[in-house]
């Protein structure tokens, strides 16, 4: 079995690195190139970079920036944000991106997953979903661009993404994102079937113990981490850190 991965997830807005809380309140973190370089030297398993502007503005991707990021990153780099067609995906692969992450485009065009998957292999496509919870703690599918619930059945949507050829599934828990409140593995109970592809969870990770809990959960194959690797202490001081699977074994 492949070892479970620990993946820093970085957000880009206006070509700057930011960190949000529950998809709001963006805080400036610094120059994305330097932060990627630091994670690279820390030998992170993989890195995911999401440009959160591009899906909203509809602008074309900032290939120059992405290329610079890829050139500082020797581990698999995933890019997501604003990808609408296979030509963009091709260009991304040509400048050093290893995986493409598709999220909101999957609501109305699942064919893009199929196209990329057929041409480059399913391992190169991550389907991402954002989920939120309602007043009764019921998990629902969230459209982060429109900032509201989308009327699709989550399980059906996930199944569609998988059947169209997604190689991995990333679930972002919006109500947890950036909160450092801890991820509870029970949050995955909403899934009604066994996910046949690797599952990455993201949202709320707040300690080494919390990472270990998630790693020991059978359903989880990889953990996405933002705030816990970016901030330190009561003032949320920016201080880049990383914990590898190996470090955790030594710590045991």
């Amino acid at each position, binding site marked *: 079995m492949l070892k479970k991965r620990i993946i820093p997830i970085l957000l880009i807005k206006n070509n700057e690195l930011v960190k949000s809380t529950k998809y709001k309140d963006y805080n400036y973190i610094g120059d994305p*190139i330097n932060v990627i370089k*630091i994670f690279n*030297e*820390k030998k992170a398993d993989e890195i995911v970079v999401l440009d959160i502007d591009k899906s909203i503005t509809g602008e074309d991707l900032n290939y120059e920036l992405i290329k610079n990021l890829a*050139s500082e990153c020797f581990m698999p780099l995933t890019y997501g944000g604003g990808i609408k067609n296979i030509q963009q995906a091709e260009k991304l692969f040509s400048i050093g991106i290893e995986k493409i992450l598709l999220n909101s485009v999957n609501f109305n065009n699942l064919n893009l997953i199929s196209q990329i998957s057929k041409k480059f292999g399913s391992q190169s496509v991550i389907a991402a979903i954002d989920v939120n919870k309602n007043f009764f703690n019921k998990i629902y599918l969230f459209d982060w661009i429109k900032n509201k619930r989308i009327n699709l059945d989550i399980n059906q949507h996930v199944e569609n993404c998988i059947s169209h050829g997604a190689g991995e599934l990333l679930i972002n828990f919006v109500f947890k994102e950036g909160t450092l409140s801890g991820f509870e593995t029970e949050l995955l109970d909403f899934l009604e079937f066994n996910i046949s592809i690797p599952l990455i969870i993201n949202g709320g990770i707040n300690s080494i113990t919390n990472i270990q809990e998630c790693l020991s959960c059978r359903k989880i194959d990889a953990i996405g981490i933002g705030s816990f690797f970016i901030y330190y*202490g009561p*003032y949320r001081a*920016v*201080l*880049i850190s990383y914990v590898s699977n190996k470090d955790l074994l030594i710590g045991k």
Partner: protein
Amino acid sequence: MINNIFKYQVCNRCIMDSTAIDIIFNSNGFCNFCSDFLTAQNNNNNYNNLSKFIEKIKIDGKNKKYDCIVGVSGGVDSCFALLKAVENNLRPLAVHMDNGWNSELAQNNISNLIRTLKVDLHTHVINWEEYRNFQKAFLEANVIDIELLYDNAMMSVNYRLANKFSIKYILSGNNTSTEGFKIPSNWSWFKNDAKNIKKIGKKFSNQEINTFPTFSTFNFIYYQMIKKIKWISFLNYFNYNKEKAIKELEEKTNFKKYPYKHYENIFTRFYQAYILPKKFGVDKRKLHLSNLIMSNQISRTEALKIIQQPCYPDIHEERKDLEYFLKKIKWDKEKLNEYISQKEIYHNFYGSEKHLWDTLVIINQKIKSFKNFFKI
């Protein structure tokens, strides 16, 4: 004394040479830099006063969340200052400034240090686009002290936070033992020169000060004299030895040492090992090594051997830093070569506060001697 600035000469005691414009050699061939250092060192009897000083910080900081600020870069000196502050039961707030050039090593050292010592940290991240514009402007202005930007902002960040938390002491890793040599006047520039930063930024990058934290002569007067915040070279209170400090940090905090000074910041490294020697003919290692010779931490023979080696320990590392520099600044190699070949222009050509500062220093001295004369 013979002033020999036109003929190349190396000091017989340290390794300072006539690339320092204000060097003067005596009849033994000893220079004013090492002589001044010895005088200053003899006058530094701070380490007898440590406990008294610690008590004073504690009393002044009573009932406050923190009693001092320690600025940490991730380098040996500042990390050691923080360690010593905690070991002396002070309650420091660690402050770090991120200018977009942090190395992994620096982040790792700071992280290990503050987690082990259980100290709160405040990071000020300067907006990188703005900082880059200022750096680019300083490069294009052909002035020598590009690190004025970092040093100036760092002072500003530390004083502002001290003020915010009503802290009276900023403990810095500056020290006479490894940094006690006066920097030759043609190797750097006056560090409180906010005007110089504004003028050069505007002229070459059309960049205004938006979020960049500047520190002017008036800020200095405000924080030091009105707010009574003191900037302390904390390590002068200790018998500071760099090698021993590294060992102690390694044992106590998992510190990783650097191949040479200032390796915590990639730009500082590239600036000192590439730009300064290639464009300005300045090799700052002479200063640091001379300092170590005079504080008996290294022999002169050993220092002379080190200085013969290239500034970059290996060519691969130089190439890696160079490529990274070009990527970050958005220059190509041609532009860098052109820059290296251009002549230096002095900082004050663009407008500066140095004259104002010098005048104020003279006035201050006059007032002091006047007071002394009349025993006020």
